[in-house]
């Protein structure tokens, strides 16, 4: 029991004992703790900063996306009100086939364009209300049909007018040859009469004189044509002068001259006999 008592007393006294550490002991420990714990703290702070940065980045991106969407939506309304071209461009994508039909109507008449602009405005504002849009589209379609009928009528009338014009042109073209033929005949007859007159007077006619007469007649025909024709076109004149007219006129004149010359020759020969 003695050792236990002695040991208990030693234990009691040692347990009660305290030894004050040196004054700088805490500073030493604090520096050691800073070396060990500060990297952990820094890494944790970095982690939190990175998390915060990611969060802010995501927020910024979403806000930018939202604002971009708003910016995209807002100008549509503005453009609808202000510019018809903008409306046409913007509405092509969402509207599709309906809009193509509407564009056709726009192209066709300004009145219908206004109606379509109104309908597009309504569709933009009331996108969710499809029934209303459908009704409007149907009404626009009916208007389109009406317009188509009108357009067809217009085209028909235009075509008839064109046909009439064409017929007038053709008739004028037909009249011009007839007139020219008559003039040519008159001229040919005049030239033949002059040649016969020279024959009757026993005046010998040289080929130069005949050619001069023919040129004179040709110039007269051309001037008559120019004066009588409503529209003066260089190509038409050239065609008429250098083409058919010359050939027919020359051929006819020469044929007339030949026949006249043979008649004169036979008559002179019979007289001599």
């Amino acid at each position, binding site marked *: 029991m*003695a*050792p236990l*008592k*002695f*040991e208990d*007393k*030693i*234990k009691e*006294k*040692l*347990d*009660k*004992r*305290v*030894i*004050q*550490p*040196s004054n700088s*002991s*805490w500073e*030493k*420990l*604090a520096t*050691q*703790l800073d070396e*060990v*714990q500060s990297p*952990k*703290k820094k890494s944790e702070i970095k982690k939190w900063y990175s998390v915060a940065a990611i969060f802010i980045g995501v927020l910024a991106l979403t806000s930018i996306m939202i604002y971009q969407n708003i910016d995209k939506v807002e100008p549509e309304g503005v453009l609808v009100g202000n510019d018809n071209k903008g409306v046409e461009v913007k509405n092509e994508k969402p509207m599709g086939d309906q809009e193509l039909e509407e564009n056709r109507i726009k192209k066709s008449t300004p009145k219908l364009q206004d109606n379509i602009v109104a309908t597009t405005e309504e569709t933009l504002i009331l996108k969710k209300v499809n029934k209303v849009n459908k009704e409007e589209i149907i009404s626009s379609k009916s208007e389109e049909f009406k317009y188509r009928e009108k357009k067809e009528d217009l085209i028909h009338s235009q075509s008839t007018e064109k046909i009439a014009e064409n017929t007038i042109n053709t008739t004028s073209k037909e009249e011009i040859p007839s007139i020219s033929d008559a003039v040519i005949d008159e001229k040919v007859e005049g030239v033949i009469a002059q040649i016969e007159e020279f024959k009757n007077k026993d005046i010998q006619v040289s080929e130069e004189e005949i050619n001069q007469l023919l040129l004179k007649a040709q110039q007269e025909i051309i001037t008559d044509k120019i004066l009588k024709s409503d529209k003066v076109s260089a190509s038409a004149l050239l065609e008429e002068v250098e083409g058919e007219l010359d050939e027919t006129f020359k051929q006819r004149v020469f044929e007339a001259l030949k026949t006249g010359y043979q008649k004169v020759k036979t008559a002179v020969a019979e007289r001599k006999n």
Partner: protein
Amino acid sequence: MKVIQFYKNETQLVKRAIKQHRDAQRQLYNQYAPKMLSVCRRYIKDIHFAEEVMLNGFLKVFTNLEKFKFEGSFEGWVRRIMVNESISFLRKEKQIFFTEDIVGYHEESWNNINTELEVEQIQILLDALPEGYRTVFVLYAIEGYKHSEIAEMLQISESTSKSQLFKARKMLQRKLNELNMLSDGALKI
């Protein structure tokens, strides 16, 4: 009421120290450092080394504070760390040797021992013991560990622990007897 208040304060301090609040750590250090330096001093003769060991012990305490489960006393948890740290220091410095040359040992009688010793005298007696004797004696007689626990801590057999204790007690008795022979009671070892 005061004990409950202290416990609450200590728990709060420990929780704050876990969050690496320096002020809480300092409060805990100021509270337990003198006791823990005394613990370290039992094993280590040099007070400067003892303080160094104590500081290393507190560094481990504060860096591993999240492992404390608030199940036992915080002081006991810190004390155990200090003991382990002291033993590690001795092992590292190769100051601890254990001999197993005792075959049959029995408890010595502590007759005629003047037990009225000052704590400083006790410490001088303990310092006079070899490292192995002193370590086992302090662990067994002062800290209250069993031989099995001491054997595990010091990585020795239980019989070695017992023999070291026997030798330590024998040497202490001899020293105390020498002390009692002095008429003036002055401790001369």
